[in-house]
């Protein structure tokens, strides 16, 4: 999951130092992600994992690190499996 998230970040978000220099818990905003970048990232994640982030999840925090994105995606994928 995190490998796939990282490759999507690399494709969609411009980070001066690149995503490979970051740990899973590094703050993407501090690494230079803009709010426009976070929108691009969201759209790409929704497309790749065939999910739609609900309103309650959509805040600055969700897209702040690989770890928090991964947790949110796991939750959505689990919900889909149950539903």
């Amino acid at each position, binding site marked *: 999951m995190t490998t796939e998230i990282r490759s999507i970040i690399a494709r969609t978000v411009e980070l001066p130092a690149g995503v490979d220099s970051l740990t899973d818990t590094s703050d993407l*905003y*501090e*690494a230079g992600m*803009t*709010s426009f970048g976070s*929108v691009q990232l*969201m759209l790409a994640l929704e497309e790749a994992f065939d999910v739609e982030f609900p*309103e309650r999840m*959509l805040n600055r*925090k969700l897209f702040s690190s690989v770890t928090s994105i991964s947790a949110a995606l796991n939750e959505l994928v689990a919900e889909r499996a149950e539903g």
Partner: protein
Amino acid sequence: MLDAIGSDGAQGATTLAARMKAVAAVAAEAADQVDRDARFPREAADALRQQRLLGIMVPREHGGEGVGFGEIAELCAILGASCAAAGMVFAMHQIKTASLVHHGGASVWHRDFMTRLARDQLLLASSTSEAGIGGDLRNSVCSVVPDGDHVTLEKDAIVISYALDADAILATARRAPEAASSDQVLLVIERAQADLVQTSTWDTLGMRGTTSHGFKLTARVPAAQVFPKPFAEIAAQSMLASSHLFWSGLWFGIAAGALSKAQAFVRAAARKAPTVAPPGATRLAAAAAELASLKALVRDGIARFERARRHDDELNSMAFAIAMNAVKVQASEKAVGIVQQALIVVGIQGYKNDTPFAVGRHLRDILSAPLMIANDRIMANTSTMLLMSRLDADLEG
């Protein structure tokens, strides 16, 4: 005006309003000269100090009056009706104070500075814009550079409004030389710590008294004067709402001031010919309804902020930013329209600068509203956010 109810109930708000009306009377006397000479509204600034209105947002425990956003917007409206430039100086100062009050509480130096602001009635200026960032305040070229227990800063600031008349400047910069351009901090630079070399002048159509010259700003300050909280959070949680709401309050005041002149003109015409409806009377009625809708818009924005105020998650949400952006864009456009209607109602007597019904200054001043942060830029940001945010389709909340 906006009739905000004070945090102490209506009586507190009345007192604040009365104090600001005293300032507005002083500002009105000098307004034409301030505009003509494009000079700082010194008389109004002195009166603001005298009425002790510069420190009112500071919490009581630090010597202020703990006033909220609603009352500040109302006070901006009162002053703006008399002198838009003085109103804008007051609004900008309070936007900076909002950042200090909301985000400085966790740091000893900033708490002490808050106390000094209230005690000595310090006037705060702002330095966000910079050559090479294309007007996006969430990016900086310059950075603070650590220098022992101090930091240094060199900033090519395209605009620092009333820098030479302020007691301190709050400036944005990158957190460190190697930080990303959006990884910013906010720091306080006191006037004595700042070296300012003027690089451009402010000879504009309106809002001439804000004296928004460009400067090369150089400073060396103790590291403690840098806010601990990242500027990204300060921008989202206090600056966005305070700037859009205080400006909108001010624009409401300018529009109300112009429309009051139109009403006086129509009344005078009606007295001369009581049996004939004066030309412009129905246009005045339509513009008055526009003014009422502008008032509702600004007040709803204030209520929206008050609901979100204690919830950082809500303040950081895109839905909240979209709402504040909408208030700014709508208020600026409506206010321009109302002042234009006021001019049509009054006619030539309003177009002339030397009549009691002159609204030329109001019109020139209000034309800055859609440009100070360009509405097109704001709408572009909103359009991006609407890709990942629910449309607010409820009448409640």
